[in-house]
């Protein structure tokens, strides 16, 4: 449905996208993640035919974007900071594009209602908030009732209510068997929406997996608070559990189950006040994956 094949793009000495390959299935919501400057926008621009790769191919429905017939009815896209003329009204912005997409004028009204911009539709865009601009960009992307949505940081500038609205919208969209490719520099922002992720850093692929696979990478640890932490630590060491950290008198124990920690404490006759399994967050995994490589 959407694929990058050895995609490479350089700007002078900087390689913005470096030999990037991935492939999206139809009917999925894929998060395209990476820190700011990782090459997400450049990749999306190449997928949309706005930028020419130096090497490799960017394909949508198996073809370069420019070769699609009436692309507005197949792919809807919003790039960062919705591209709008400040002196044009929302309705006119949509009419201009609807003309090319060959959709009836009634569709303009429909998408305005869909993104809740009916009341502001005849105001010039210069008075719009960032959130309204984002929604207008989304309305334009939806004009042709596309089967694929490509969104670059759509949550930027949205208030919490707007983020929630967007999440619900994308879920509904995907539930109709359509496909969403949405970028974000924050995993938490999309974790509840996406079912798979493509993670890049410095223009290179870091991970391409389902969200559940990513979750499975979560390293668990056990938090144990005991009356005599030193004794407990010693007992754990004797039992062959080396990875422990002290925090306010409690211990974080890695690589072992809570049951086992309890057994060791019981065998050493150390009273335990608290014993919990804790898992690191998805965000931790994301940060770990995209951490600067040691130089």
């Amino acid at each position: 449905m959407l694929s990058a094949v050895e995609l490479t793009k350089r700007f002078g000495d900087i390689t913005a996208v470096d030999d990037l390959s991935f492939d999206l299935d139809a009917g999925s919501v894929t998060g395209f993640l990476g820190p700011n400057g990782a090459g997400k926008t450049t990749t999306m621009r190449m997928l949309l035919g706005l930028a020419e790769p130096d090497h490799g191919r960017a394909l949508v429905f198996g073809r370069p974007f420019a070769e699609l017939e009436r692309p507005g009815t197949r792919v809807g896209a919003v790039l960062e900071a919705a591209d709008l003329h400040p002196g044009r009204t929302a309705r006119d912005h949509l009419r201009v594009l609807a003309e090319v997409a060959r959709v009836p004028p009634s569709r303009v009204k429909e998408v305005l209602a869909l993104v809740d911009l009916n009341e502001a539709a005849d105001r010039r865009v210069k008075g719009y908030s960032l959130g309204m601009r984002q929604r207008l960009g989304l309305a334009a992307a939806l004009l042709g009732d596309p089967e694929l949505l490509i969104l670059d940081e759509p949550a930027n500038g949205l208030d919490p209510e707007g983020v929630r609205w967007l999440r619900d919208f994308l879920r509904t969209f995907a539930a109709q068997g359509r496909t969403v490719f949405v970028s974000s520099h924050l995993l938490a922002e999309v974790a509840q929406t996406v079912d798979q992720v493509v993670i890049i850093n410095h223009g290179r692929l870091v991970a391409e997996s389902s969200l559940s696979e990513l979750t499975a990478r979560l390293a668990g640890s056990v938090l144990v608070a005991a009356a005599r932490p030193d004794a407990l630590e010693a007992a754990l060491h004797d039992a062959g559990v080396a990875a422990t950290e002290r925090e306010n008198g409690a211990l974080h124990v890695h690589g072992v189950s809570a049951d086992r920690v309890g057994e060791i404490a019981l065998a050493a006759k150390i009273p335990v006040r608290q014993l919990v399994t804790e898992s690191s967050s998805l965000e931790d995994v994301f940060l770990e994956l995209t951490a600067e490589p040691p130089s």
Partner: protein
Amino acid sequence: MSRQLRSELLKLRTTRTAAVLLLAAAALALLGIAAEGLSPTPGELAPEDEQRLLFGSAATNAVLFATFVGLLAVTNEFRYGTIRPTLLFEPRRRVVLAAKLAAAALAGIVFAVVCLLVAFGAGLAILAARDVDVALTGAHTLTLMLGTIAASALSAMLGVTVGALIRNQVGAIVALFAYVLAVDAVLFATVPSVGRYLPGQANNALAGLPDDELLAPGVGAAVVMAWTLAFIALAALRTDRSDV
């Protein structure tokens, strides 16, 4: 009419840019006619050449502002990023360029017609008020009208190509002014045998302005068309290749 052309025409009508430029062109045309028609004595206004100059002042304004409409139609897309939605709906860049050229040409024709209406309306009124007989011949009137319309349409297209080549709005405007004031006019004043082939002077010839150093209107038309085609070719190459 192609979808893209309709879209481009709608773009021109849905911001104030083109309307403001049209108003400015009409106002300056009126001002020009008033200055040319009121300052000379009635006797000085009587010769046909003088009246060609008077009515021809419409052409200068129409051409200048038509160029701007074309230039802004492109550079505004880059300035505000609307080029991206435009190309997402029509990724064939040459189709977009062609539609912009056509829309700008139509706008140029509107500019010419409005400026001509202003010029002839005010000019004839001034001549009548000052008891000067209209000496302009039918043939020259026709040349002036058709020439102004053609020159404005072609200039608007040239404006589109300049915008497509330079993209940066301020840069394109500065380049256009620098060219018109420092190259076109200066070269024509110093070396008319060369300067007359430049687009600005060829446009003046096409519009039928009376100046012995200018080319004949028909030759002027051919020269402007050659310039326009050359610039369209360059703009097409630039459009094909660049990232947006």
